[in-house]
C-alpha cells in the first residue's frame, strides 16, 4: 500500500485524507437514502391510488387499527431517534461511555417498537384481517365496504417493509455497540455511527408518515 505509516489506520488506502473519506461516505449515504425514499415512494403511490379508488373503504378500514399502539410506537421511535443523535453527540464530545449507553437505549427502543408491532400483527392474524386472499374478517363495522383486503394488503406491505428496516437497523446498531465498546469508534473516527444514524432517522421519518396515513385519516 502506498500510504505512509503516519496516516491513521482507519484511513483506507485509496483516499488522500480523513476528510475526503468522511465526505465520500456521507455523500454515498445520502444517495442511498434517496433510493430508500423512492422504494417507499412506489408504495405511497399505491396507497394514494387505492385511497382515491375506494375512499369510503379506507376511512372505514382504518378504524380497525389500534390507534393507541400506533401512537405508542410513534413515541418510542421518535425517542430512539433522539437517543441515536445523543450517541453521536456523546462520541464527538469524547464521552464513549455515554455514547455506548445511548446506543443500547436506541437498540432497546427499536426492540420495543417491534414488540408492539408483533402484538398488533398477532391480533390481526387472529381475527383474519390479513392481506389479499387470506383476508377473512367480516365484522359488522366493515360489512358495507368494498375490497377491505386491499387496505390490509397495503398496510401489511408498507409496515412490513418498514419493520424489516427496523430489524436491519437493529443489526447495524448492535454492530455499533460492539465497535464502540471495543474502542474502534472514537472521537476521531465515528463515521459509521453517523451514517447509521442517518439511516435510523430515515426509518423514523417513514413511520411518521405511515402512522397518520394508516391510523388517523
Amino acid at each position, binding site marked *: 500500500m*502506498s500510504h505512509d505509516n503516519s496516516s491513521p489506520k482507519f484511513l483506507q488506502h485509496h483516499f488522500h485524507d480523513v476528510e475526503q473519506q468522511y*465526505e465520500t461516505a456521507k455523500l454515498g449515504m445520502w*444517495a442511498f437514502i434517496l433510493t430508500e425514499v423512492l422504494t417507499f415512494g412506489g408504495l405511497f403511490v399505491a396507497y394514494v391510488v387505492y385511497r382515491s379508488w375506494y375512499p369510503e373503504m379506507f376511512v372505514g378500514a382504518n378504524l380497525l387499527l389500534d390507534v393507541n399502539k400506533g401512537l405508542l410506537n410513534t413515541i418510542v421511535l421518535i425517542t430512539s431517534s433522539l437517543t441515536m443523535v445523543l450517541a453521536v453527540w456523546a462520541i464527538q464530545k469524547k464521552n464513549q461511555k455515554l455514547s455506548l449507553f445511548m446506543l443500547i437505549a436506541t437498540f432497546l427502543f427499536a426492540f420495543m417498537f417491534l414488540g408492539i408491532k408483533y402484538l398488533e400483527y398477532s391480533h390481526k392474524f387472529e381475527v383474519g384481517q390479513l392481506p389479499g386472499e387470506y383476508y377473512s374478517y367480516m365484522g359488522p363495522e366493515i360489512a358495507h365496504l368494498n375490497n377491505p383486503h386491499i387496505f390490509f394488503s397495503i398496510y401489511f406491505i408498507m409496515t412490513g417493509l418498514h419493520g424489516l428496516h427496523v430489524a436491519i437497523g437493529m443489526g447495524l446498531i448492535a454492530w455499533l455497540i460492539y465497535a464502540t465498546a471495543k474502542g474502534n469508534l472514537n472521537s476521531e473516527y465515528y463515521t459509521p455511527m453517523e451514517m447509521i444514524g442517518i439511516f435510523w432517522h430515515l426509518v423514523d421519518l417513514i413511520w411518521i408518515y405511515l402512522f397518520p396515513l394508516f391510523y388517523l385519516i
Partner: protein
Amino acid sequence: MAENQKQNYLTHPKGIMSWLLTLDHKRIGLMYLFGGIIFFFLGGVLALGMRLELAAPGNDFVSNDTYNNMYTLHGAIMIFLFIIPAIPGALGNILLPLMLGAKDVAFPRLNLASFYIYTIGALFVMYTIISGGVDTGWTFYTPYSTTSTSNVIPMTMGIFVIGFSSILTGLNFIATIHKMRIPGLTWYKLPLFVWALYGTSLVQITATPVIAITMVLLILERLLGIGIFDPALGGDPVLYQHFFWFYSHPAVYIMILPAFGIISEIIPVHSRKKVWGYKFIAFSTLSIAFIGFLVWGHHMFTSGQSVFSQIVFSFITYFVGIPTGVKIFSWMLTMYKGQVSFTPPMLYALSFLFLFTIGGLTGIFLGAVALDIHLHDTYFVVAHFHYVMQGGTIIAFLGGLHHWWPKSMGTMYNQTVASICCLGVFLGFNGTFFPQFLLGLRGMPRRYATYDQQFAELHNYSSFWSGILGLSIFISIMNLLWSLRKNNKLDPGTNPWGGMTLEWTHTTSPPHPHNFEEEPVLEHGPYDYDKVIVEPTFKK
C-alpha cells in the same frame, strides 16, 4: 522502475482467490465483462433460434410455448444481464477511476458486493431457464403474469436482486465522481464518458428502486393475491404498467447514456480534434436523464389513458429528441475537418451514428399518438427498439471494447479482421432489422411464432441477415480473445490511438495494480488536440 513496469493488475497479485476477492475496480470490471459476454452469447443464441423459427411461416422448429419462452428469456437476459450492467459494470468500472486519476472507486467493497449480487440474480435467471422458463414477455404485464403457470417468481426475483447491483454501482459511481477526482480535475475538464456515467448513475439510483418494489408487489400478488394488480380482486393492472414503465423508460437511458459516453470518447480521439460543444454534450446527457422520467406514458397509449395524458406524454416525448439531436450534431461537427482515421473503434462509432439516428427518428414516429396506435405491438416497435439498443448501445459497447482493449489487456487484436467484422455487423444488423420496419408497417404483430404468407419474404430476408450479424459479432469477440495469446504483449507505454485522457497518458497498458505509480498531475484537458500534440505510439 523496470521491475515496476512489469507489474500490472492482470498479473499481480496471483491466484484465483486474488481475483474472486479482489477489491480492484479493474479486476471487478473484467469479471463483469466476462459475465456480460456469456449472457450476450446466451441471449444471442436465443435470438438466432427465434429467427430460425421465423424464416418460414409455419411452426417449423419449436412449439408456440417454446417460442414464448424464447422471446421472454431473450429480452430479459439481454436487458437485465447484459446491456444494463455491461457498459457501466465492465467498461465503467475499469475506466472511471483511471479517468479521474483515482486509486479506486469510492467504495471498493461495495463494488465487489454489487458484482456478487449480480451473480446471484443471474443464478435466479439460470434457475428459471432450467426449470421450464417463463412466457410473459420481458415486461411481465399483469394480469397474465399473475395467472401464468410458468416460472414468473424466480425470474422477477432475479430482476429484483439484479436491481440492487445496479443501484449500488450507480451510488458508488456518483460518490466516486464527486469526491475522488485529483486536484485540478474540475467538472468541465472531465472526460465526457464520466459525464455519461454520472447521468446514468443518477437514473440508476432514482429509477431502479421503483422496479424493485414493483417486482415485490408482483411476487406478492402471485403468492398472497394482494389485489393490487389483479382486477378480479379489485386491483388495477394498468397501475402495474405505470410502475413498470416509470422504471423501464428511464432504464432505456441507463442503457443508452453510457453508449453516448463511449462515442464521445472515440470520435475526438480518432479524429484528432477537440470535441465540438463539450458543454452541450455534457448537459444534454443530464437533460436526457431528466426528461426520461417524464415520458413513461408513451408506452401505454393503447392501455386506456385519457386523451389529455396521451397528448402530454406525446408532447414531452418529442423533447427527448432535442438533447439527442444536439449530441449527434456535436459529434458530426467534431469530425468536421479532423484527421479521421478509420480504425475499428471509429468504424463502430460511425455505424453508431447512422444506426442510432434511424433508431432515434423512428422513436419520434412512435411518440406520435395517432401513429403509435397503428404501430403498437408490431414489428415496427421491435425494429425501433433494436436500432436503439443494438444499433446504439451494443455497437457502442463493441466500439468501446475495441478502443480500450489495448489499454485494459495490453494486447492488440488483428485490426483488419476487426474492421471486416464491424462491416459485417453493420450490414447484418440493417439486413435483419430494416425489413422489420416494413413488416410492422404492414401489420405483422410481435411475439408470434407463425405468420401469414404475405410476410414470408421479408421474414426470410431478416433471418438470413441475422446469421451474418451473429457470425460477425462472434468472430469479432474471438478476434479480441485471440489477441491474448502468448508473446503478443504490447510495450507498456503504448498509446495506440493517441488518447489524451489520464488512462492513456499517465499509466501503463495494462495499468499498474494501484492505477498510477504516483498521483497524476493534470497537464491538459481531455480533448486539447488543438494545444498539445500526443502522437499515437504502437510498439510490440
